[in-house]
């Protein structure tokens, strides 16, 4: 495999040492490269030890090989493990989303101010903590607030309404047992909130979380807030957003997290509504949903990208949270 060592992310000193030993390609180093099923961490370590490199270079190369080969190994896909989605408590919205928000995906919600995006974020955060017996994920959720729209009192209200709902639908003795012991406090103990006041804090937070992610959902409310007004150099903004998007993708692949990102919209020159953050950001999300306010209580969601593209569903925001519209 003719992959020159100058194209690997290893420091210059290692590259210089290897060139002095006449190693130009990666295949000069490893005689048998571990691809596909024969990938074996021990065989890489053994082969590196046989090469008699100085300790510091050997360790760097072994780390690099193990990390990259492990992550990019080709595998056949396996289906069969049933993935539990995060529901939104409105059955029309859930069926539009093919069940809800699944793990390992990035979903983007867009909307003008007042179109229900923050309410939807809070509802999804609370819904993560629904116990497994009732079809929920029972996982922790992280709600990153860039705008200041997250209200703890509203989260409390939604959690109380969720508990009431669970008490109503509990049928079997086992379910009744669980709901009798469940408290609002316990539901809310799984919802974490963090407030970011500039983009550096946001990136630092995602970096910390990526190291060992045990959240089931990470919800970023209004990503565009910190990127719209602070930058004078557009190229720097594009670079930072591109790197941020790479980090989010890596997070999604490594851990079974659902990433829900709320974006804002702007008017372009011709008077039509466009999402913020530009074209290069628009490829990050696997699904994009546009929210709109139809009347006092009623909101609509349209899928702009993803399965069921172009379809719309209506939902209502009441004091209990996101619910279905009453049947006409």
């Amino acid at each position, binding site marked *: 495999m003719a992959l020159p060592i100058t194209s690997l992310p290893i420091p210059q000193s290692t590259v210089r040492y290897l060139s002095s030993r006449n190693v130009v390609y990666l295949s000069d180093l490893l005689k048998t490269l571990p691809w596909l099923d024969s990938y074996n961490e021990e065989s890489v370590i053994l082969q590196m030890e046989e090469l008699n490199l100085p300790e510091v270079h050997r360790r760097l190369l072994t780390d690099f090989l193990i990390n*990259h080969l492990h992550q*990019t190994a080709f595998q056949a896909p396996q289906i069969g493990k049933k993935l539990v989605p995060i529901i939104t408590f409105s059955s029309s919205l859930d069926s539009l989303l093919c069940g809800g928000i699944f793990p390992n995906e990035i979903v983007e919600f867009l909307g003008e101010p007042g179109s229900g995006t923050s309410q939807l974020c809070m509802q999804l955060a609370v819904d993560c903590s629904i116990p497994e017996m009732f079809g929920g994920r029972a996982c922790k959720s992280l709600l990153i607030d860039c705008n200041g729209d997250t209200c703890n009192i509203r989260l409390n209200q939604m959690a109380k309404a969720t508990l009431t709902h669970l008490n109503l639908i509990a049928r079997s003795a086992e379910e009744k047992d669980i709901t009798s012991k469940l408290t609002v406090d316990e539901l809310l103990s799984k919802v974490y909130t963090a407030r970011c006041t500039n983009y550096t804090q946001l990136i630092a937070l995602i970096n910390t979380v990526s190291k060992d992610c045990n959240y089931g959902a990470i919800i970023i409310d209004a990503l565009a807030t910190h990127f719209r007004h602070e930058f004078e150099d557009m190229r720097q903004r*594009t670079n930072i957003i591109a790197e941020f998007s790479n980090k989010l993708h890596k997070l999604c692949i490594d851990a079974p997290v659902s990433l829900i990102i709320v974006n804002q919209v702007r008017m372009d020159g011709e008077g039509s509504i466009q999402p913020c953050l530009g074209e*290069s950001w628009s490829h990050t999300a696997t699904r994009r949903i546009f929210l709109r306010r139809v009347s006092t209580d009623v909101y609509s969601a349209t899928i702009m990208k993803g399965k069921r593209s172009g379809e719309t569903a209506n939902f209502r925001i009441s004091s209990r949270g996101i619910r279905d519209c009453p049947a006409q």
Partner: protein
Amino acid sequence: MFPTPCNWLLRQNKLLKFQNTLPVLDELVGGLHPGQIIELCGPSGIGKSQVCWHLIRDCLNAGKNVAMISSRKIQDYDLENLPNLSNLSISYVSSVYNLLISLAAVNSMSVSLVVIDGIQPLLQAVLGSANFKGQALLNEVKCGIGTVSVKSLVIYTNGLVSVGDGNHGPALGRAWEVAPSVRIMMLRDREGGRVMWRNREVTARLEIGDQGVEISWN
């Protein structure tokens, strides 16, 4: 690459070529056969990945192997209704270096179709950095794709950027413009339908249904 007789190469290509159900696309790109590097570029949500999945399904139906290199996790609802899943190999990449290693690995597999979904986020991050290594890495990727395309058909998806005056062009800059052998631009026309252009002359219409995509002449 050793000198090989032409008839042997033609026979290899015939073995790896697969029957597809998109004859209009076949004609639009000048033939879906090994040696072609096809770029599908278009705005978000226009159906680039859908076209790729349709071709993957055709290739698996014909019993050939497919390698997919993706920067985002493949969901189960993409994989349902695909036959012969054991012939599909997926590799997840999150940086340019991962992409280079995956491309080198594909060389030792014998696949008919290689799909790289989402090449823009991987390369955009390196292009923006201030050092000169970005262009060198871009060249490496071009060479890697070229080596893979000798034995397989390579399709990858790119994004659009605005090039001034309201026009759009493929992302990743002038140096990347020569990377594919055919570039298909996918855009929305005035009525909201999806069109595929080659060289601004030849157009075809794209419809996305539940069972796959349909491409017809305009």
